[in-house]
């Protein structure tokens, strides 16, 4: 199959690649770029395990062709840590509040939460619940995911927050 040339910025790194027109962004990231953090959970865009950030929007990368990302800037879970390698507020929040169990939905959930906090720096619980409703988690029951996002929001905003899961 004829391949298309694409240029993408991934986690601040410029990448050029040849991809088949039908190659999904998730497979491009996972298989060609070896960024296996984003996962495939449903193939139909419902579960959000494949969520990445593309040009300041949350995108389900199993619903996006790699060619659609041509010229775009993408952030994946591998690009979420602080510059010094420490966990970012969201990553830390998920750990401190026990916001994950099997870890499979976590990269997508964190990327979605990242964009949510860009859109709304101080969301209410209800806004968080609606804001992550495109991302399914089978393990946690969401209570602690909500707390993890609240933890991160507070830490980023410099407001008081609960230190850890009660």
């Amino acid at each position: 199959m004829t391949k298309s040339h694409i240029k993408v910025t991934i986690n601040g790194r410029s990448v050029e690649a040849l991809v088949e027109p039908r190659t999904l962004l998730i497979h491009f990231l996972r298989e060609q770029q070896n960024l296996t953090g984003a996962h495939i959970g449903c193939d139909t865009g419902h579960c959000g395990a494949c969520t990445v950030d593309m040009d300041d929007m949350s995108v389900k990368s199993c619903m996006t062709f790699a060619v659609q990302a041509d010229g775009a800037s993408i952030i994946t879970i591998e690009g979420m840590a602080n510059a010094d390698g420490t966990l970012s507020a969201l990553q830390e929040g998920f750990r401190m509040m026990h916001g994950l169990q099997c870890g499979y939905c976590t990269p997508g959930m964190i990327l979605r939460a990242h964009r949510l906090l860009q859109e709304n720096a101080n969301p209410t619980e209800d806004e968080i619940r609606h804001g992550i409703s495109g991302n399914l988690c089978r393990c946690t029951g969401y209570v602690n995911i909500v707390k993890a996002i609240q933890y991160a929001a507070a830490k980023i905003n410099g407001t008081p927050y609960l230190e850890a899961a009660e």
Partner: protein
Amino acid sequence: MNEQVKVDIDRAERTEKLQGMGCKRKRVEDIRFTQGKGNYVDDIKLPGMLFGDFVRSPHAHARIVSIDTSRAKALPGVVAVLTAADLKPLGLHYMPTLAGDVQAVLAEHKVLFQNQEVAFVIAEDRYIASDATELVDVVYEALPCIIDPFKSMDGDAPILREDIKDKMVGAHGPRKHPNHIFEWTIGDKQATDDVFANADVTIKEMLVDHRTHPSPLETCQSLASFDKVKGELTLWGTFQAPHVIRTVVSLISGLPEHKIHVIAPDIGGGFGNKVGAYAGYVCSVVGSIVLGVPVKWVEDRMENLSTTSFARDYHMTTELAATKEGKILAMRVHVLADHGAFDACADPSKWPAGFMNICTGSYDIPVAHLAVDGVYTNKASGGVAYRCSFRVTEAVFAIERAIEVLAQKLGMDSADLRIKNFIKPEQFPYHSALGWEYDSGDYHTAMQKAMDAIGYKQLRDEQAQKREAFKRGETRELMGIGISFFTEIVGAGPAKNCDILGIAMFDSAEIRIHPTGSIIARMGTKSQGQGHETTYAQIIATELGIPADDIMIEEGNTDTAPYGLGTYGSRSTPVAGAATAVAARKIKAKAQMIAAHMLEVHEGDLEWDVDRFRVKGLPEKFKTMKEIAWSAYNAPPPNMEPGLEAVNYYEPPNMTYPFGAYFCVMDIDVDTGVAKTRRFYALDDCGTRINPMIIEGQVHGGLTEAFACAMGQEIRYDEMGNVMGASFMDFFLPTAVETPKWETDFTVTPSPHHPIGAKGVGESPHVGGVPCFSNAVNDAYAFLNAGHIQMPHDAWRLWKVGERLGLHA
């Protein structure tokens, strides 16, 4: 500050540093998972790796007239196409199931359920493999199918399993019909029937625990790599029980077990779906053996929901007999169990209906009888325990719905009826009418605590007022109060009654202390999100006085881990957790001898103090475990072998019996059928609590899955056997928006036979949650004489209840 206070502070500081049992230790797993550095099967890439994909049947029941693979093979990038004809000479077109049946790997003459595996295409990438499945030409001749299990044994029913049609004695005794799998009975039938014949009050209800699916977010997958030169197979896969998989692969492939390396890497949730062996695993192995290169198989979501291991599908005719004062005298249950096309239940061998005989629940019921008939239908095979011990959700659903039905008939409050019939604390260990010995319990305390916490009496008063208001036409909302008081049976199990493929259901731990005092420990279990790397280390930290952060837990590699039966049925803490404590105690006993030698005293003069052995009466004379570890390698006592390690294979003397009291308050809009959970309170007693943070997380997750099952999740078929909605479009997985907020609480009744008193908790919230939600819905409509309302309780079905009762204008 006096001396004693100083000592106490010092001990508390040393204890805290260990991060042992009882503390909310943060999970070690999360460091990698939050950075996208987990290592799941599909993350593994090997040089030259090929991809497999299945051609699947569009029919529920059809004869295969012909299979033509030539067009597929001609597609560039396709390497091979396997059919039953290729597997048959190897004896691999069928594989044994854990339930004593056989299951087709690739269909030979007939297909027996929609999406059954017919051919396996192997290609250079997954897109080409998928393309090629479209190019395999299969000609089918459709046959009449059986979807309703109640029609399986009709005289004119088509015979489904022609491969075993003459084998009228199955793995579990005589078969009454070619579509019958087994009949399993327990209890005193005559005595039970006699009580029913003479009882003041009896109830009888058909309670359906409908077909659903565990549906972990990561589907089932495997990667096989056969080294032709060494004759060795390495198999990575989504295996909740990697050691059992190694044995199964050895048995069916003929490869010696020591030449098979099974590795379960990180697993993205299991919930029972990843216990069994599937056609995809076998085909990736065969593909790799035949081609000599690695072959990966990754299930898509539709395949997952429609083929690998459904759960439930139990049709339970449930009866209770009682006095008019509400003392339950007997229970009688008949189950029609729909196992689909092959009996691929993942139960211990001797338990074709799992532990369904825990159905007498938390109550002192003098006599009972249970009969279960398993039948074949044209549906996917399985019958796995979805976030529960074997058939325990079904059993608890039966008793906890039935007791509500009885309460209504007696005109009694159902909480009072439960309390009146509870097994009393002094009755433990309690021998149930259906054969179990409950190890411990304190039901009255738990129930009272729960009722106080939820404000039970006030809720009933509020409900009474709302019902009056509804009758007066002032509200269109119905209020339901759901209760469930469950007793689980987990931690399988004792060798006398629990085995899988003849292997006793022990589990294991091997602990090795290094010279510098850090530890690696390996278990026969396999975490799928439960946080084993965190919690097993906490057990060892407390037992051996080494900080949990200095302990690495490793599971899932059958080359390095001791043999174990795996993680399901809440057995990790009850069995491998016990093995961990026992192995640690073996090490501690040796450490005490070494310490005595170092301190030049008699062993009996030493006492354990958090992280050290000290001389009794001389607390300043001590050796820490770290110092002892060095000595074990550097200067062990004369005649003692060096090193400091131990292994334990723990065979539990009994199961454990966690219990809990759950309450749900629900408001239902009678005109839309939309049900809103106002409160859900869960009190769990799982015995000793290792990590309260993780326990709470497990409870949250289990309740969410219970909510899903009760309120909408279902695998449904039409009359042609088409699976209706095998995607997340139709299959209900709750999002953060509809998931209720959970309130958790606990009591602690340690297991008397477990080394640390722990009972297991991961599945309790699911087991207790399902009937609690269903009871809330049923309670909402109870005053309108709705009768029993079957699950799942989605808005459409509840709207239909309102319609049936004439409640809509």
